[in-house]
């Protein structure tokens, strides 16, 4: 089982969610985050004084999937979230040691 974490532009969230539904990914967790990679921030003026807008708003998607869905998941997110412009984001893939469905107690791939 894998945990796929994707940081994407906020307005791409709906597209990403739809794409994941289409390939059969059932569950998703979404968090509002801020960050930057190579897309640097900029300065703005507030009442005449400078402040740095380093951290740009992004959305973090987390999906737990069975191993056999990994390639489709990565393709779905990449295609949906891509704009071709700087700041599109990144996807991280990590191994999941265990998954448990709280309601039923199911574990492993049955819980994903």
């Amino acid at each position, binding site marked *: 089982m894998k945990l796929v974490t994707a940081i994407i532009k906020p307005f791409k969230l709906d597209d990403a969610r739809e794409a994941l539904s289409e390939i059969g990914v059932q569950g998703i967790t979404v968090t509002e985050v801020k960050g930057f990679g190579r897309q640097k921030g900029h300065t*703005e*003026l*507030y009442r*005449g*004084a400078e402040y740095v807008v380093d951290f740009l708003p992004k959305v973090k998607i987390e999906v737990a999937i069975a191993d056999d869905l990994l390639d489709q998941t990565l393709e779905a997110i990449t295609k949906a979230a891509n704009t071709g412009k700087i700041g599109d984001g990144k996807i991280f893939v990590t191994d999941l040691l265990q998954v448990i469905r709280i309601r039923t107690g199911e574990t492993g791939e049955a819980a994903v």
Partner: protein
Amino acid sequence: MEEQIFQLQYAMDTFYFLVCGALVMWMAAGFAMLEAGLVRSKNTTEILTKNVALFSVACIMYLICGYAVMYGGPVLLSGIEGGDSLVADALASKVEEGFDGGSVYSGASDFFFQVVFVATAMSIVSGAVAERMKLWAFLAFAVVMTGFIYPLEGSWTWGGNAVFGLYTLGDMGFSDFAGSGIVHLAGATAALSGVILLGPRFGKYSADGSIKGIPGANLPLATLGTFILWLGWFGFNGGSVLKLSDVASANSVAMVFLNTNAAAAGGLVAALLVARFMFGKADLTMALNGALAGLVAITAEPSTPTALQATLFGALGGVLVVLSIVGLDKLKIDDPVGAISVHGSCGILGLLLVPITNDASTFVGQIVGGLTIFVWVFVASFIVWMALKAIIGLRVSEEEEAEGVDVSECGLEAYPEFTK
């Protein structure tokens, strides 16, 4: 028949006073929202607590002794409800004044109208000291400001008494219709003396001279607060006409509403344009301050200017407030909401604009009056702030400031469920 008309006038003028007083009371909500919107979210609960508490402290202190200091009369408002001869006394006053003469109204309504002005003056201080002052030090100051400092200064101006027995401002041609100087400059002066002793927020000014912008957390609230203040100001200036119940008075009231509104509009547009010119983008917070600056500028004389003059006077306020905000920052005087600029700089402007349209006032009188208010309030406030600093300390610790005063002073977050 004449008696009944006099009773009607009394009732109408009393009613008018009460409604205007209620409008000015609503300005407290305006200040609360404006300030809550311009501080960071970790400091929201504390500033709201400050606002509701100072309003209440002002009402109580003015009731206990402030009103007596300002206008004479008994402490604790004893007898204000009137006795058995209430109607007869009122009618006798009305006969003396006549239909077209001075306004005669309920003593209780006079207190009600006055007390909300005290609260307004005190409220100006809360924004300037935001995000780093100890709540209880602020409230202790409020007790003295509303019970003594403001009332004494008010007694020399609206109360008509000689300043420490030396000179009488009214005789010198001092005129301040609704309180650009008496209320707004006074509040800003108390704020300034506090801010000087308090120091700026941590990280605001760096050693290399750069100034850090610290954006407010909730601009919808700040905007709502400004509009609420704008509405309340119709009561602030409108009620200061003191009478409604004859054609001349009613017309004066109408002009005051018209000019008050025009000045706010002029101030907002001017501030917006100046901010656009100076900073390249439309800074909403400057526009909001601009509207208030216009309102403060017209407050010393909203009845005699023409509509165009009122708009221009407001616009002058709007220009001045932006320059003042930037200027105070350069002097390292940290004012998170621009209170000192809106109410102090533009309060002075308001005083100086009066002789342009009001022949009964003089520039000398305005300057002497302004200086009297400024010196008295500054010195008296400074002493109180110093005493508080020595006894309980004015400022929260650096750690508490970083964590947010909501946690350290109130133990409550404004938005505990939000994870952002």
